[in-house]
């Protein structure tokens, strides 16, 4: 919501304007690095814990094996001693009763003793202290058993009665066995204690891991939840933004087409259907060139929209043509805007119907032409009558009458000047005023203007002092219009000069420009008035009495601008006013090439003409193709067949068999494409780079011609 505040019209502060005109950078893709790190950390903790528990488990297994062996050994030792008792008892019974059953019991116990000794030997392998005791025990048992065996009758001998002396051996063996069992008990107690401690540790670790896992899962859930909560208002904002923009898109009266990075239409608003008759499905996926002529269909989208350093050089393209579905053309202005998106650079083209404006312009032009005609007609009679009166009856009139005639005549002329100025200003505004731009020297223009102003100066006792460089000032321009500028500036200076004053007209080179200065010693221009100097009907307090129309500086500014120059005011050192204007000096000293242009006013605009003039190419204009055929002596011809009107047949004359060499290159716009022709045959025409401005083409071709190259290649 806060984001939208910036876009509300009511908050169009400096920040707001900046956000309207510049786009925020694309957000970077959210990084999952930290999340990944957390997950890895969590996994590592769990794995380490599991490994530790596993190690503890394995150690526990080993301990448990040792414990079991201790128990086993204790049982075997106890059993061994019990068997030894059985052997003793069996021998004793036999000797007492001569019972063969007792002998059998004796012998089975002997076998059991042998087996248990084998078991014990195996169980004692890794217990050196017990092994040593067992070795002693084993020796005692052997000796005792030998003694017992000797006391028993063999099939061939009698029993020896001295076996009883070996009772000491049994007692010692029992003592050793008891010590061994005591040792095993000690070991059992020790290992049980360790086992318990280890089990307790493992239990603690398990609890720790379970707790850690719970904490991590909980933290993860909390983060996910907070992300979702943080995202929700953004989603709402995005939806709101989409709703607003969709509303603007659908509700605006201008036809809007959104273009993908290939220049194809990806969306159009309902105004497109209203203006041009196309249904959206007829346009989606088609190139924008089918809809308007503002983006030539050649080159990448960046080239087509004229992108320079991330900005569109000409975002507003006026006086273009849109194509209605039924085939007729609609005059439009096209505004282009950029939409940088992750998928590339998209473009929005807003197409405004200017039919009504065109009609009003035509009406206005017609009105001004008619009004000026109607005003001039009575003025013709007035000025003519007064002029004749002064000439024919000059001597017959009394002095006061002659002065009155002069006053009337001068003011009638002022009125004519005013009408002419208004008409000129209108022509300059509408672009209808065509500059006859050609290579000229500015110095003779200054002399001419100075001479033309001598009458006005003499009437006020003012002297015009001309200071100009001797080597001339080569420029490309319209002599008559530039003289008009100088005359206007001189007239102002003379009007404001004190009687007997001097107006200085000078010109100089500054860098690549010619600077013309008109300076006077009049009252100067008050700071408050300086801002309005070049606006229409702007007159300083006493200017009206000085006799100006109030349009001179406005017209001068328009003319200088049409020459690609600037005009400005400076206070003069020591008092007075100083007006200067500058226009570019012509590059190179070679003779200018002449380019005949045949087409509407918008075909080669004054700006293009100026650009050509700076390359030493002078534009001459012909009315229709017929006019082109009439003219001769040019170095190249540029023809707009789309707008050449009824004279298309004249092209046959231009390229026909009766056109004698030298043949000149011809560039033709036909069907919205530029063609370049050389020679007399229409077959020789071929497509030039359709996307390039026509003036670039002309300059290229003329450069070829200047170099004497083969133009057709």
């Amino acid at each position, binding site marked *: 919501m806060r984001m939208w505040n910036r876009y509300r019209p009511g908050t169009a502060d400096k920040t707001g304007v900046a956000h309207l005109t510049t786009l925020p950078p694309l957000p970077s893709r959210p990084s999952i690095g930290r999340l990944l790190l957390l997950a890895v950390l969590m996994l590592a903790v769990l794995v380490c814990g599991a490994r530790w528990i596993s190690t503890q488990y394995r150690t526990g297994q080993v301990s448990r094996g040792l414990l079991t062996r201790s128990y086993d050994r204790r049982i075997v030792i106890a059993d061994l001693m019990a068997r030894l008792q059985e052997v003793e008892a069996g021998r004793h019974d036999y000797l007492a009763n001569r019972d063969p059953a007792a002998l059998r019991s004796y012998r089975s116990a002997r076998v059991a003793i042998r087996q248990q000794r084998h078991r014990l030997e195996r169980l004692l392998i890794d217990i050196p202290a017990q092994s040593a005791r067992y070795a002693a025990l084993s020796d005692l048992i052997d000796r005792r058993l030998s003694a017992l065996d000797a006391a028993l009758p063999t099939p061939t001998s009698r029993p020896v009665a001295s076996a009883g002396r070996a009772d000491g051996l049994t007692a010692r063996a029992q003592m050793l066995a008891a010590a061994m069992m005591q040792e095993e008990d000690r070991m059992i107690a020790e290992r049980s204690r360790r086992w318990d401690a280890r089990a307790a540790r493992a239990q603690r670790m398990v609890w720790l891991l379970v707790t850690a896992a719970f904490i991590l899962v909980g933290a993860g859930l909390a983060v996910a939840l907070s992300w979702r909560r943080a995202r929700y208002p953004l989603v709402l904002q995005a939806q709101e933004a989409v709703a607003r923009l969709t509303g603007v898109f659908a509700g605006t009266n201008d036809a809007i087409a959104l273009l993908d990075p290939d220049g194809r239409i990806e969306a159009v608003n309902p105004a497109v259907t209203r203006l041009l008759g196309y249904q959206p499905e007829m346009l989606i996926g088609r190139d924008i060139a089918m809809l308007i002529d503002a983006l030539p269909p050649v080159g990448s989208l960046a080239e087509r929209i004229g992108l320079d350093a991330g900005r569109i050089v000409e975002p507003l393209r006026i006086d273009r043509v849109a194509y209605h579905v039924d085939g007729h053309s609609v005059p439009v202005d096209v505004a282009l805007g950029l939409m940088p998106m992750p998928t590339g650079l998209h473009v929005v083209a807003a197409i405004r119907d200017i039919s009504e404006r065109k009609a009003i312009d035509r009406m206005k032009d017609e009105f001004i*032409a008619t009004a*000026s*005609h109607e005003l*001039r*007609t*009575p*003025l*013709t*009679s*007035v*000025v*003519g*009558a007064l*002029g*004749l009166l002064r*000439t*024919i009856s000059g001597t017959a009139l009394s002095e006061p009458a002659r002065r009155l005639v002069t006053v009337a005549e001068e003011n*009638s002329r002022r009125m*004519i000047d005013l009408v002419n100025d208004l008409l000129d200003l209108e*022509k300059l505004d509408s672009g*209808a005023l*065509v500059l006859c731009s050609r290579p000229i020297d500015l110095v003779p223009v200054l002399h001419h203007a100075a001479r033309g102003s001598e009458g006005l100066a003499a009437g006020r006792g003012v002297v015009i002092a001309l200071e100009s460089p001797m080597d001339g000032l080569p420029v490309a321009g319209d002599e008559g219009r530039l003289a008009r500028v100088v005359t206007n500036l001189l007239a102002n200076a003379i009007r404001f000069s004190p009687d007997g004053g001097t107006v200085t007209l000078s010109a100089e080179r500054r860098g690549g420009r010619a600077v013309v200065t008109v300076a006077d010693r009049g009252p100067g221009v008050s700071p408050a008035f300086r801002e309005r100097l070049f606006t229409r009907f702007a007159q300083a307090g006493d200017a009206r009495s000085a006799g100006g129309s109030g349009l001179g500086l406005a017209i001068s500014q328009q003319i200088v601008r049409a020459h690609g120059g600037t005009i400005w005011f400076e206070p003069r050192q020591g008092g007075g006013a100083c007006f200067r204007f500058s226009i570019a000096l012509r590059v190179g000293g070679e003779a200018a090439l002449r380019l005949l242009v045949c087409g509407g006013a918008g075909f080669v605009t004054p700006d293009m003409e100026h650009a050509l003039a700076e390359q030493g190419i002078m534009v001459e204009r012909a*009315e*229709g193709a017929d*006019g082109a055929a009439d003219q001769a002596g040019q170095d190249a011809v540029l023809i707009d067949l789309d707008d050449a009107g009824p004279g298309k047949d004249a092209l046959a004359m231009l390229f026909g068999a009766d056109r004698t060499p030298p043949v000149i290159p011809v560039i033709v716009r036909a069907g919205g494409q530029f063609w370049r022709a050389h020679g007399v045959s229409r077959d020789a025409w071929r497509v030039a780079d359709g996307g390039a401005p026509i003036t670039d083409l002309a300059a290229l071709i003329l450069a070829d011609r200047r170099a004497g190259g083969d133009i057709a290649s």
Partner: protein
Amino acid sequence: MNPQPLNILHVEDDADIRLVAGMAMALDPAMTVTSVESGGAALRMLTEGAFRPDLLLLDVMMPDMDGMRLVAEARRLPGMEAVPAIFLTARTRPGDIALYRAAGSLGLIIKPFDPVTLAQQIRALLPDPV
């Protein structure tokens, strides 16, 4: 050397301008001016009166027929095929000037004209006598 005598038919719907222009041309003693108020009157004079001027001096915007049409009509008459014509008009937009040229005129004098030099301006537009 006396200037070449010139018989001029001046067609202009505004009576005051007819008067002023007539007096201005009368400053040149070799110019004889016949003034009429409309294209129709001029054509009548040329067809019925068999008047053959050396030059047509015409306004462009007139109520019954414009100056260009009058030139075309007049040049259909016998003996008038090559009569020179000069327009005297306030309509001077670039498109208008092309039309005047297309109508086969010698040139254009812009209203308001300077009455003192009008005769000189007319003579300046005439081709040199062969």
